[in-house]
């Protein structure tokens, strides 16, 4: 119980502490400019939080769940660790500290760093809460808080575009959250409790009575949470928010925070039960949407010249791989989906950090300008290349494993049309992925004969930046090398506990 | 209906006269004509009363030759009413005429609408 609570509330408290302690001085106050102390504190806090979270996962105290307090009699704030939660928590625990360390260097020249770190910690705590939430209300609580605490990260630079992008992110997310809330109200009425239970919590009598309306509700909820996961037609916030946010924030946003939408979708499926939804119009509609997103995202990314925006579109596309896996609703595809959560998480974090490093060092944002970058920052670009391969799905990276399962699941599903169409589109999209990721490698290492080698400078970033990138890249390869460990965890996730 | 009208021609005439007087009083713009209308209207009513009070073949209710039977005389009350009414209408007419004089000395016209427009022009 305590590790869970600590993993949630310690970072929140720490974040608030940073916000207050290092706030912008009022007129007449002395400015507190001790940057080193701030970084040190942040670093410690990040590590401690991660430690708490790992402890919570390892000790297994949260398996039985516990109620923290009751909002009202029927609305407990309830925490429980299950395997899906474990998986997502694992991702957060790994990505967030490293991206945090990366920021130490990256944020050097930004104003109001304390605000960034404060909200960063807040978001960390909230993410932990999200993963450990044991019922829908608790989940919703942290879901809202996640939006609110990550919004300042997007807006951080304070430029007009950033503020507008932050607001766009906020309103899209809230729109989705409220759509989901609509469903929660009805679930509350038609379930015995809002606690996550395997195989659906709907009352049989309710299903019999207004099953049709419940299907609508389910669809609304899937759409609503889908906003966070960038599902078409509500994906537009992603490509706006990512380019303006600081790179480490984009990394976290893209690799972890948007996964909250995926987690939410899994929870919704859990509440309704796949048996209730399988074969209904809801499934069909959902699959169509995900496939559109997969293809469209890749296509847009392919046409996008700005690097970070290209990555954002890529995220849109990749997340819908996961959603597609969930929408097919059989075990194989689900395994694939969960695998892809991890794979994409590590890869995308690595990619964004690479992009960040490049931008930080060279100030170039467009792919076209980055000719010859491999000569200047070879290590960074190697990492980029390896991670890219993971995303495209070249064995032995993690991406290959997950896409394999996805395609397999789809083919096994027996759905009309989509059992084949799905894998075809996934393949097409993978081709496009190669098309938009690899040019940087190619032009970076092979700038062409007319490239002016004379102006080359050594621009490899410092260790604080390169080490996180390296680790994340290695991880993305590792999960491909040892898929068994992952698969067994995921199997556990599917079977229930 | 037609028969009744003919039989009570006096009343019918007085009603018509009343209407004539009424419309004159209401619609004429000239003050003097209005007052004439007023008098026609009042007279019509007196005619009506007199017509009602008179019974053919009887005499005025003044006792002569000690005939005390009520059958011999007409009803004296309508006549009394007519007298009272005349007094009232005379006084009212007098008041109206005096008002007319005042207005005429001020505005040099007898047309009520004209007076109104002049008043509006005065703005008070």
């Amino acid at each position, binding site marked *: 119980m305590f590790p869970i609570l600590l993993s949630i509330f310690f970072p929140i408290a720490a974040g608030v502490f940073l916000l207050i302690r290092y706030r912008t001085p009022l007129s007449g106050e002395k400015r507190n400019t001790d940057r080193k102390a701030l970084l040190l504190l942040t670093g410690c806090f990040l590590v401690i939080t991660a430690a708490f979270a790992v402890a919570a996962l390892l000790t297994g105290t949260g398996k039985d769940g516990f109620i923290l307090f009751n909002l009202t009699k029927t609305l407990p704030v309830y925490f429980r660790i299950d395997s899906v939660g474990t998986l997502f928590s694992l991702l957060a625990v790994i990505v967030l500290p490293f991206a945090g360390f990366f920021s130490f260097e990256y944020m050097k020249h930004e104003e109001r760093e304390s605000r960034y770190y404060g909200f960063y910690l807040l978001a960390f705590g909230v993410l932990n809460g999200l993963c450990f939430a044991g019922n829908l209300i608790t989940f919703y609580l942290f879901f809202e808080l996640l939006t609110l605490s990550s919004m300042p990260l997007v807006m951080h630079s304070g430029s007009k575009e950033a503020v507008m992008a932050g607001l766009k992110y906020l309103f899209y997310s809230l729109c989705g959250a409220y759509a989901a809330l609509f469903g929660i109200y009805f679930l509350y009425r038609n379930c015995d409790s809002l606690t996550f239970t395997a195989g659906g919590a709907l009352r049989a009598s309710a299903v019999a009575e207004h099953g049709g309306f419940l299907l609508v509700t389910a669809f609304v909820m899937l759409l609503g949470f889908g906003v966070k996961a960038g599902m078409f037609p509500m994906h537009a916030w992603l490509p706006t928010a990512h380019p303006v946010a600081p790179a480490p924030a984009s990394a976290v946003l893209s690799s972890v925070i948007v996964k909250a939408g995926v987690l939410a979708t899994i929870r919704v499926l859990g509440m309704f039960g796949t048996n209730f939804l399988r074969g209904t119009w809801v499934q069909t509609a959902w699959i169509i949407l995900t496939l559109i997103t997969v293809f469209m995202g890749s296509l847009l990314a392919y046409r996008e010249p700005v690097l970070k925006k290209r990555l954002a579109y890529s995220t849109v596309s990749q997340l819908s791989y996961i959603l597609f896996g969930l929408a097919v609703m059989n075990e194989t595809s689900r395994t694939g989906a969960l695998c892809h959560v991890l794979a994409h998480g590590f890869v995308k974090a690595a990619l964004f950090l690479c992009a960040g490093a490049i931008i930080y060092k060279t100030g170039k944002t467009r792919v076209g300008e980055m000719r010859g970058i491999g000569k200047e920052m070879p290590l960074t670009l190697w990492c980029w290349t390896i991670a890219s391969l993971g995303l495209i799905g070249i064995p032995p990276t993690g991406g290959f494993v997950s896409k394999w399962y996805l395609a397999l699941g789809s083919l096994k599903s027996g759905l009309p049309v989509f059992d084949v169409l799905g894998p075809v589109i996934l393949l097409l999209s993978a081709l496009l992925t190669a098309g938009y990721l690899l040019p940087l490698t190619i032009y970076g290492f092979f700038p062409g004969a007319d490239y002016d080698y004379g102006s080359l400078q050594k621009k490899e970033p410092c260790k604080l930046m390169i080490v996180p990138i390296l680790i994340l890249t290695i991880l993305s390869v590792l999960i491909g090398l040892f898929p068994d460990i992952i698969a067994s965890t995921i199997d556990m996730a599917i079977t229930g506990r | 209906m037609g028969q009744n009208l003919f039989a009570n021609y006096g009343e019918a005439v007085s009603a018509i006269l009343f209407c004539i007087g009424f419309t004159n009083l209401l619609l004429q713009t000239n003050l003097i004509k209005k007052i004439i209308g007023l008098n026609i*209207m009042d007279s019509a009513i007196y005619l009506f009363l007199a017509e009602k009070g008179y019974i053919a073949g009887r005499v005025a209710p003044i006792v002569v030759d000690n005939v005390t039977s009520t059958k011999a005389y007409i009803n004296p009350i309508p006549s009394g009413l007519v007298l009272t009414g005349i007094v009232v209408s005379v006084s009212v007419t007098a*008041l109206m005429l005096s008002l007319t004089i005042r207005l005429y000395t001020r505005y040099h016209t007898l047309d*009520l609408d004209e007076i109104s427009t002049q008043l509006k022009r005065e703005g008070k």
Partner: protein
Amino acid sequence: MNFICNFPFFSILLSLFSGTICSVLPAKAAKVVNRAVIIAVGLMSAVLLLYLLSTGEPFIYWMGHFPAPWGNEIRAGVLEAGMALFFCMIMYLSMAGGAHKLPGEVVESKHNLYYILVNLLLSSLLALVYTNDMFTAYVFVEINTISACGLIMIRQVGRTIEAAVRYMIMSLLGSGLLLFGLCIMYDLTGHLLMSNIKESVGLIMANGEYQIPLIVSVALMCIGLCIKSALFPFHAWLPDAYGYSTVSSAAILSSLVSKGYIFLLIKIIYRVIGFDIFNNTRIIDVLFVFGLMGMIFGSLSAIKEKDIRRMIAFSSVAQIGYIYMGFGMGTQAGMVASVFHILSHAATKSLLFVAAIGLTDVSGGSRKFIDLTGAAYRNKWAGVAFTAGSLSMVGVPLFSGFISKLLFAQAAVQVEGKMLASLIVLGISTVLNAIYFMKTVLRIYATTDEAAYTGITFRDMKAYAVTLVFFILLNVILGVSSQPVVNMIEQGLAMFA
């Protein structure tokens, strides 16, 4: 026969006689006589009222001791005595409230004439209230008209003379119709005393002969009195007459003269035709419709008005509409409400006229709203009084207007076909009332450049202020302890039958 039974006769005679006396007295003495007579009559009426309440029986007083059907009669019941008392109170207060303005409004040499007219008016009103003879009623209606006309034109300005002429013309039309109707009635029944006519009317209705002439005669009388009391389409004369005459005249005219006619109409309805017979005619529907229209259009005209006195005058049109609506309902409750409204409107409207003059005085004599800005600060008493009057008109609880509204509404609910119409019009009319009265109230409390005018203190206008206080008290008493008054009205109406 008890001595008290002489009081009605005494009061009529006293006021007539004092009128004659005043013509030879100097102005000061005339004023004293006038006041004394009003008080004396008021006292007599009060004693009479107490006597009647104690006996519980109305009595008939034979003028000159000729028995019916030959003699002339006076009849006194609770309602008559109460009305007489109330008329005296209002008249006294109105005279007192306008007294300080008199020198400015009327030529010095004509002051005693003014008091003659007032006395004459009082006597005719009393006669209208007490008489049991139709023709006497007609004669006093004319006397009333003449004296009212005199009161209007005593202030010698172009507008008042013109208004007097218009008033005269309309009144003459009305009284002509009344007289004609009366003659037909006499023709049909052969009687002039109300009680005797009623018997004959009963017979006529029972026989079925001469019904149409009877209805025609009733209609003629009704229309005649409606014209004289300024029911909606016949109100053209009213704003000028009330708007430009002296203060006391306006107060008396609006609150007493028209009410005298209305009271006569009530008597005709109850004592001559019979309540039930009257209600079976279509006439009440006509009265009802015109009452409603009066309520709306009177208020609309008032809203458009830019002159405070004319606005109050137009408001009278609306209020008379209320009274006729009560008649139109054709129930006992409606009648009670109407009678109560006669009282409440009389008390309120004279208050408003008197208060308005206080406000215009401190605004350079201008009656335009724009000049009244902030007047309530310059003359606080008048401001408060005007506010109280307005609130009563709008129907705020604690003031008399609320009770009449309450009674009207309660009465309306009991009438099947007319309920919705009357309730809705009542609501709309309240809104309209609120608009123009509250506009004025806010205007007089809005700020202004106070240096432009000099304020008035209590010391400058003791009599005036005291009058206002009495007026307000009267309003509040009617509003708070209305039950005895209502009981009295019910008792009085019962005595009519």
